[in-house]
């Protein structure tokens, strides 16, 4: 299990290879990558800055991953979340889960993302043509997390 908060970009192929390294019991790898869109709520997005709460972030992500491991029959899981200044198209977050079979990998990957969206202390500030604005939390994210 690994959880990282970093400004640098990540290479998903390399991260998956490291996550699987030496474990030939893995038959399924489910991953999710969140990326910066160029539009949000009808405004053009020129980029964004991601702020977090150092210390709590790592603890919250580790707790979410530990919960996923307790709940689903998975072999390992990885979360990487970037912070700092990002441009449209940039990768924001990676969640990767390995398991013997695909069902558990899909479920656990989605679970981690749903909980990350409501429990991990990250905040997005978007740059738009009319200035900067903090992204508002979505009701749909709250519902997605409550589903579990």
């Amino acid at each position, binding site marked *: 299990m690994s959880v990282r908060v970093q400004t640098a970009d990540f290479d998903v192929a390399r991260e998956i290879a490291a996550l699987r390294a030496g474990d030939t019991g893995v038959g399924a790898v489910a991953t999710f990558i*969140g990326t910066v869109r160029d539009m949000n709520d009808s405004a053009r997005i020129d980029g964004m800055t991601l702020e977090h*709460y150092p210390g*709590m972030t790592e*603890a919250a992500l580790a707790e979410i991953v530990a919960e996923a491991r307790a709940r689903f029959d998975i072999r390992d899981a990885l979360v990487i979340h970037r912070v700092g200044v990002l441009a449209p198209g940039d990768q924001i977050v990676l969640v990767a889960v390995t398991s013997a079979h695909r069902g558990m990998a899909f479920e656990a990957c989605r679970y981690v*993302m749903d909980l990350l*969206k409501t429990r991990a*202390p*990250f*905040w997005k500030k978007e740059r738009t043509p009319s200035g900067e604005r903090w992204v508002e939390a979505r009701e749909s994210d709250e519902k997605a997390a409550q589903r579990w």
Partner: protein
Amino acid sequence: MTNAPASLVATTLRLVYLARLREAFGTAGETLVLAADDSPTVGGVVAALHARGGAWAVELAPGRAVRFAVNHRVAHRDTAVQDGDEVAVFPPVTGG
């Protein structure tokens, strides 16, 4: 007085403000001393800040979505705080 309950002595807390609330309050944090007659809870902290008026009263008004953590763990208004705790006050998270 060494055996007095915590609520009868002052509680010194490290407050952390994040994202939009950091900007609204104009500071990333401060040291707050809860008076002996304040509730030694997150709710007591909020009440003390709200009483300052201005941006504090606006952002911490009843019904506003505010989230809390005590020592890096998710907390709620009824979560107890102790001398030396780090109490974070922030908007709903929007990562991922």
